[in-house]
């Protein structure tokens, strides 16, 4: 298995997959990323990262249904795995613990 730490981009994508649920495929994720972060991203970049997250075992995917605007082609729907969920929680907890040690913000 490859490296299991999450990069920032990877973390966001993982979260977006969770948010989008049944609609989590490369194009939708890229759109959602752009609208949520106001940062441009290419589908290729998103796809590549999704692929990497799958190799790490944080995501699984299967082919979903097709739609006319895709020229009748099916989409690959990504789903977060248990490991994926765990690293997300770990990442959040780690950051929270850091925040708690931060003096000025310690009490909110």
């Amino acid at each position, binding site marked *: 298995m490859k490296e299991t730490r999450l990069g920032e981009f990877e973390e966001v994508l993982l979260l977006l997959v969770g948010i989008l649920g049944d609609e989590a495929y490369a*194009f939708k994720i890229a759109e959602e990323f752009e609208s949520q972060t106001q940062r441009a991203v290419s*589908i290729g970049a998103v796809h590549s990262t999704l*692929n990497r997250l799958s190799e790490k075992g944080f995501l699984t995917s299967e*082919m979903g249904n097709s*739609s006319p605007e895709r*020229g009748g082609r099916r989409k690959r729907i990504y789903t977060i795995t248990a490991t994926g969920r765990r690293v997300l929680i770990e990442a959040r907890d780690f950051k929270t613990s850091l925040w708690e040690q931060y003096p000025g913000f310690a009490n909110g």
Partner: protein
Amino acid sequence: MDNNNNHTAPRLAEVLLLWFLKEELAEEVLGDLEEKFHYTAVHRSVLRAKVNYWYQVFQYLRPFAIKNYRSNNSKLNIMYQHNFKISLRNILRNKGYSLINLGGLTVSLTVVILIGLWTYDELSFNSYHSNMDNISQVMMAYHSPGEDIKVGSSLPPALGTLLKDNYSNYFDEVAMIRSRPEERIFTSDKGHFTESGYFMQPAGAKIFSLNMLKGDINGLKDMHSILISETLAKKLFGDKNPLDQSITMDGNTNLVVAGIYQDLPHNTSFSNASYFAPLDLYIHGWSDLTAWDNYFIHTYVQTKPNVKQSTVSSLIKELMLPHTDEESGKRYLFLLPMDKWHLHSEFENGQPVNGKRLKFVWLFGAAAIFILALACINFMNLSTAAAERRAKEIGIRKSLGSLRMQLMSQFLIESSLLAFLSFLSALIIATLVLPWFNNIAVKEITLPVSNPWFWSFGIGLSLITGLLSGTYPALYLSALHPIKSLRGGFNAGRKGVLFRKTLVIFQFTISILLISGTILVYQQIQHAKDRPSGYSKANLLVIPKRSGEMYGKYQTFRTELKKSGAVMEVGEANYPITNTLGNNNGFDWDGKSPSFDPSFNTIVVNYDYGKTIDWEITEGRDFTSDLPSDVSKSVIITESAKRLMGFDKAVSKELRFSRDYFGGNRFTIVGVVKDMIKGDPFQAPRPAIMFLTDHELPFMFVRLTPELHIAEALTRMETVVKGIAPSAPFNYNFIDEEYGAKFRAEERAGKLVSIFAILAIFISCLGMFGLVSFITEKRTKEIGIRKVLGASLSNLWRTLSLNFIYPVIIACLIASPIAYYIFSNWLHSYDYKIEISWWVFGISGMAAIAITIITVSYRTIKAALLNPIKNLQSE
């Protein structure tokens, strides 16, 4: 979305994407991109959508998405490194075979490098002149009735003047040059120097873009000026500044050095010119630039950049017609562009033909390629014969999943590595033998190490050699069946053996061709050398009278020289005896058909000429001073002239001549002599007519007393000459040396062909040796068992050797008719030639067979002598 629905994503981008994208990703990616496209088209604009589509496609150029990008776990870099290492190990492990391959390839690549340089030198002839593309020489075709069309370059001076005056909108420059180099003696305070150069009009310096180191390119405008080469300037003045210095030509003309030009390189037409003097000076006092009736000029033109040479050719074609006699035939002019001067300047019946030089370029080029092929064949044969040794390696590689392409690349790397190593050693050898090669080929070639083209050519050459020798083994070895090769007892199969035999036959065919070629070339040279020349060459000298001081003293010279005891006889003629200068037509005799007007070699001699050169009278008598009536009345002709005139008995027949160059128009033939070989000793003799004069003539011939030692005779002769003409520059040439020079080109070809032959047989035998060693090694056990069972040495030798000898016999049978065809074609260009006899091929074949038997026997006898116990012990 609805009204934009007809817009489709850019087709080309889609094609590009599908080209590099992994197939399994195609559906989802195309779908995503199309969705994005429609989304952008609706919310933004169609153009933006299209641009964005392209952007998205390029964004998919990522490792995870690209086809075959590390599709499996093999690391290509490591694999190639490994291939390289295995190749090196293989080369080092089989030292013997590698040496044979390396040796053969090195030798043949050396030949290819040298011949390549030589060919380049020939093809780049005259490229030193920066106006090369626009320079042409004016040539003339003689259409004489009843004869083949002849092409010549000697023209009357008036033609050049006409071209210069009336055709200036076609030509940048026109220059006339004396048609052949003139040997002159130059005197400065450093001494006398005999130099050869040209008399030329001033524009010539510009046409040929002489690189003036000092002085003016128009320096020849003054009649008493001269341009000299850098080398001559060094000789005449040492380190002094030669410009505006005065030198003396032939002891009587003072000239001022108007310029010094960089020596013309050896691969230019005028490379032999160590000076250029004004043409005006040459013709001063006896001709002028408007003469139409004297042909002694070469005319060169530089056409304007936009003018086609063929256009000018058709324009000037008929310019000579008004100035020539219609009856003696029409003369048409044309331009010969400079790039054709060297290799394409031979004509047969008016049509350009492949000349001797061009034939040599083809011949040597072909020989070099064949020799390279021989070495490549060695590589092929040895590596396929050795397939068994590597069968296991191949089997293992294949079962581990090596693709056939990967195996092939392994073998190709091996052969390319070997070829490259050979190229490097060939370069070193070429550098070492270049001086020797230049000496044989009469060239001044250097290795163009600073020329990037040379290096790219060299690397290309080693790659091609690697591919040429590696492809077949690579195909052959990579096709081996893994199970069969791993099980052992693998047999190379009859197909491989047959193929190897065919290649061996090819090698020896080439070798035998070259051996018989060598024999034939040397036979032909010897044949021409043994040809009776019609005069006696030994101890005969010619002294050109180059100074006015030597004239008017013939009788004194003659008596004094004879009195000195060093000289038997002295005579004179108006031309040297080793060339065929001086030709005339316009003769008439009884029984001649009116349309027949052959040209004769016409020379003027004095009474003593015949005795001096020792010609052989076959009919009639020699000229004699007892009969003063002979002068300007009697002629002696050669046998071929007699045949041409159709006389049974020539003596006392009358000969009429249309002009009075020879002191009259009517002559009586008083004698016939054997043909004298003055020109090309390989061609038919020129029919000649000798006229008698009592004037003094420019060439003095001296026959030395054979009893006296040459050095002693020469000293005595020089004392006498210096005594009579003290300040005249004095030099002499031996006739037998000048005659020998006529064979240089053929001797050179002979030498090169013999070198090729030796190399070819060497490389072929090297390969043969490798094959034999390999096979005997493989059959060691068999030999042991045979010996134990009582086979004799000769038995074993026969079993092992015959297989190798019979391909050579087949090669003999193939080579003989091919050699006969090629060399009878070659001999076709000579008039005086040998008959090809079949024993030549017999001898070449026997030689090849003998060498093969020696090579093969060395290995087979060694193997047969081995102790059988040792043979059988090893397991």
